[in-house]
């Protein structure tokens, strides 16, 4: 019964990944022979493997700049998404007003807007002649920075795209905490902030980890938002990866960059798995 899915994964994911890894290590034969025919600046291993492609890519200051930009945009987006989804989730959880319900409804709207459209919207909103700048100008803030085509626009875009999922996740996590647990804390003398810290926070570690890791993985692999709203260089790895692949015709270097991004994403994945295992362990020892 498990064989068909395993076979599908092996053929459609395992095999290409294996071939790509081999290619980055200089194996240009077999399944990689076609791409090897047209690729430029290829590093070929005569015997065994070579790390020359990795050395070249990591030795490239531009790529290192992209990598650094990718890391800080990812971390900043994670932080912003976690904070925002906690704030909105908490607000909706703790206040049952129509404003709260409206806020929670509005916060998931980005989910239904295609990323391309959203990116262009963000671009025009923050562009040199955009809405925000115009507004700032009118209130007398002439030095207001132009965010369009900067990494800040990328961060705003990534946050915009990821907040709905974060809010959905945090709301459902927070809503699963019974009212009585919150009231019991208040009854014991805890103020609202103390209640959040002692009850809601520790009971929502897993949703928080999910939001953080999924957001991180999304940003690491994103293309549309940084491509449309970001600067030419440095930009996120997703963008420069595609440049190496398409514009420079250097698929081996592009695949090396993909491997690097994969390692970063795997790091986040490990955190996610670890948190889940810890939760499962706690659940099994307490029931």
């Amino acid at each position, binding site marked *: 019964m498990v064989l068909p899915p395993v076979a599908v994964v092996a053929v459609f994911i395992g095999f290409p990944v294996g071939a790509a890894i081999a290619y980055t290590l200089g194996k240009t034969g077999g399944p990689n022979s076609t791409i090897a025919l047209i690729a430029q600046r290829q590093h070929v291993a005569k015997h065994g493997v070579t790390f020359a492609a990795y050395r070249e890519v990591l030795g490239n200051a531009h790529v290192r700049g992209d990598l650094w930009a990718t890391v800080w945009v990812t971390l900043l987006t994670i932080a912003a998404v976690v904070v925002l989804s906690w704030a909105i989730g908490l607000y909706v959880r703790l206040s049952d007003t129509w404003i709260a319900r409206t806020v929670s409804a509005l916060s998931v709207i980005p989910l239904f807007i295609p990323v391309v459209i959203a990116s262009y919207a963000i671009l025009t909103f923050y562009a040199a002649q955009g809405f925000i700048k115009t507004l700032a100008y009118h209130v007398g803030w002439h030095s207001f920075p132009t965010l369009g085509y900067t990494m800040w626009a990328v961060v705003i875009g990534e946050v915009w795209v990821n907040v709905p999922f974060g809010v959905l996740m945090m709301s459902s996590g927070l809503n699963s905490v019974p009212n009585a647990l919150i009231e019991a804390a208040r*009854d014991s*003398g805890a103020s609202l902030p103390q209640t959040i810290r002692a009850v809601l926070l520790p009971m929502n570690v897993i949703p928080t980890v999910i939001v953080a890791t999924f957001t991180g993985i999304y940003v690491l692999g994103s293309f549309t938002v940084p491509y449309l709203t970001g600067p030419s260089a440095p930009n996120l790895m997703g963008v420069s990866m595609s440049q190496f692949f398409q514009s420079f015709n250097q698929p081996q270097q592009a695949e090396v960059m993909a491997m690097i991004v994969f390692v970063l994403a795997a790091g986040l994945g490990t955190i996610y798995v670890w948190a889940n295992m810890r939760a499962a362990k706690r659940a099994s020892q307490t029931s």
Partner: protein
Amino acid sequence: MSESTTPAGLLIDRVSKDLAGRTIVDDMQLEVRAGELTCLLGPSGCGKTTTLRMVGGFLQPDAGAILIDGVDVSRLAPEKRPTAMVFQNYALWPHMSVFKNVSFGLRLRRLPRREIRDRVEQVLELVGLTHHMNSFPAQISGGEQQRVALARALVLEPKVLLLDEPLSNLDAKLRVRVREDIREIQQRVGITTVFVTHDQDEALSISDRIAVMSGGRVEQYADPTTLYREPATHFVASFVGAMNFYTGTVADGAVEIAGGVRVPCEGARRNGGAPVEIGVRPEDVMVSTAGDGAEAHVLREIPRGHYKELVMQLGEAEVRAFVGPEVSTSERQRVRFARAVVYAEGVLRPSTEPAPLR
């Protein structure tokens, strides 16, 4: 009501509360003496939880005031009130050990570690759970979780303890045991307590006084014996304990019910002769095979262990009687009432017995 000048442990003073456009608690007046255990008893939806939540500070009364030891606490937030609540589902924090759960409020008060440890140990000893100090809530049984919740409430030494159907998640046997534990602990600590339940058995067995609620109002507030013997209203009579009800008239020494059946009734005194509601407890129905009682046919006999319940046809009406298991029953029985309560327009008429009345 209070003879002394010391303020009540808890005074719910003409409190009203509307929720979603409906009056849930309606001009409620209730005084709980210091150290007393009062049960709020009533059918589902009568406003018991709402009342309790107003005392705990989770709801604001629309009108009236709540006083604890004579001090108005109506405007205080829950964390500022000298009350502690035991929630229906215990509401223990699943990510904290028993020790952490119980010590939470003390830790918030930044007491020295040594003192926290001592007080937690003391209160866990009181509820008999010292051996579970480091267990997590999910690792202990429902009854134990219940006692942890009680310990968590007691450790803060509140002036008023509030319990909202604390036993409803326990099985029948455990429920009886834990309610006795709660009563025992409550008396030992001497804490003013409000206990919400819709189980009359529970209320009758642990309360100093019981407030029977209906539709957001207190129908009767009395000690268990009075409540059972002299239910002030038709509602209380039918809600607390089993009761045979008949429409009929009262004569001297007898009552006359539908179908012209005349049943001898001790202490009955003629009063006007207008039709009234007559209530008779099943244990006050006397059956015998001979004598001057009204004739009845046994329809069913239900063994109840230490007693028997007889369902009999009495004229056009049915009568239920509790008799000893040794009473031999033939198909025909003679029925007398040892005692009856009479209601005119739903309110107790103090006419059927010479016993002291309120």
